[in-house]
């Protein structure tokens, strides 16, 4: 078992426009590089962050991303939390189904993001917003 989690050097990026999605992506990329993630893992995490940030913007009506480096024993990784106070998700299982979308997208953003990261936690209740936490560990 690894040691307790230590979160370091947290940074927030408000998400209110398409430019902010790009900014969130760049922030996550910087963290991923600093934590020594491989190029493939960097790309996967950045893509997941891009999907989640866009969901925050499009479905949550904007919100906040918090990104930080995490340490657990000898492992290092990047942790990102996307939070909005939008309408929330009524059916979490349905939302995580490939190809299902309530908007005009491909319906792969949320489910795809889950496959791109090592840890994925989705919390949402109708009317009280959505919170998605993801972690990617350096190998």
């Amino acid at each position, binding site marked *: 078992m690894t040691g307790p989690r230590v979160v370091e050097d947290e940074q927030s990026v408000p998400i209110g426009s398409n430019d902010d999605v*790009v900014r969130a992506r760049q922030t996550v990329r910087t963290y991923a590089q600093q934590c020594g993630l491989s190029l493939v893992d960097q790309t996967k995490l950045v893509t997941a962050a891009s999907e989640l940030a866009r969901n925050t913007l499009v479905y949550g009506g904007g919100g906040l991303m918090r990104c930080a480096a995490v340490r657990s024993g000898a492992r290092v990784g990047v942790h990102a939390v996307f939070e909005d106070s939008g309408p929330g998700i009524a059916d979490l299982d349905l939302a995580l189904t490939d190809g299902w979308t309530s908007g005009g997208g491909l319906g*792969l953003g949320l489910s795809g993001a889950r496959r*791109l990261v090592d840890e994925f936690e989705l919390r949402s209740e109708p009317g009280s917003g959505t919170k998605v936490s993801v972690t990617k560990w350096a190998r």
Partner: protein
Amino acid sequence: MAVERASERLVELLTRDGAVQEQWVAAVAASLGGRISRAELERELSDLYQALLQALDKGGLDWQDEAYSEVRALLVELSRSRARHGFTPTETAVSVFAGKDVLEPTADSTAEDTAAYLQLARLFDALGLFTIEAYARTREEIISAQAEQLLELSTPVVKLWEGVVAVPLVGTLDSARTQVVMEKLLQSLVDSESEHAIIDITGVPAVDTEVAQHLLKTVVAARLMGAECTISGIRPQIAQTLVALGVQFGDIVTKATLADALRHVLQHSGAALPSGGDR
């Protein structure tokens, strides 16, 4: 003090020794460090000075009043020219605030003069803020114009071979840019009578579902016009990410490099390849 009396008094203050305008120009010139010609500064400020006197004369200290429309117009013009010539907000606002400094009361000033000055200071502050706002607006206009130019610049469609056009995409692919890319690509397919298009995404840092969807739509639109699209520049990390995301490119031909894509297109279009180019 009644407003009319105050503004009358201010006109007196401003015209008192006939040197106010000159001092004003001198103060502004000093802070701009010769980056604008004295003659131009004199013209700008004398217009402003005259307009201000007239506005005060017509009565009222309310800068939003009809009487101040001339003053506001001049300030907007001044801000625009400063913003265009790359002056900072401070260097822009100083043109207004220097006028305030010139009239600053001295130890000899009467109480009435000081009271009038305070009224004037309030007016100048408002006009200064108005100037900054106009300045910021102009800067925003410049920025959005540049963003538009960049959009045009960053999406060239190049002819690679007889009947083959390519779009090298660089940077973030959002809805607005995809729209431009699609329009340009479809138009150039018609203009160059090409039947093959290669979309190269080597320069796109992240391909997420939105980018993939935009690419798919562009390919479908090209197909409707009878053209075949190939997507190139799929690097290893992008390929693995797309698999994990679950994005399907269906029967669209994808290649790792632009060279591979061109070779593929040429082989399938039956064009003669230079000897040794065949693998």
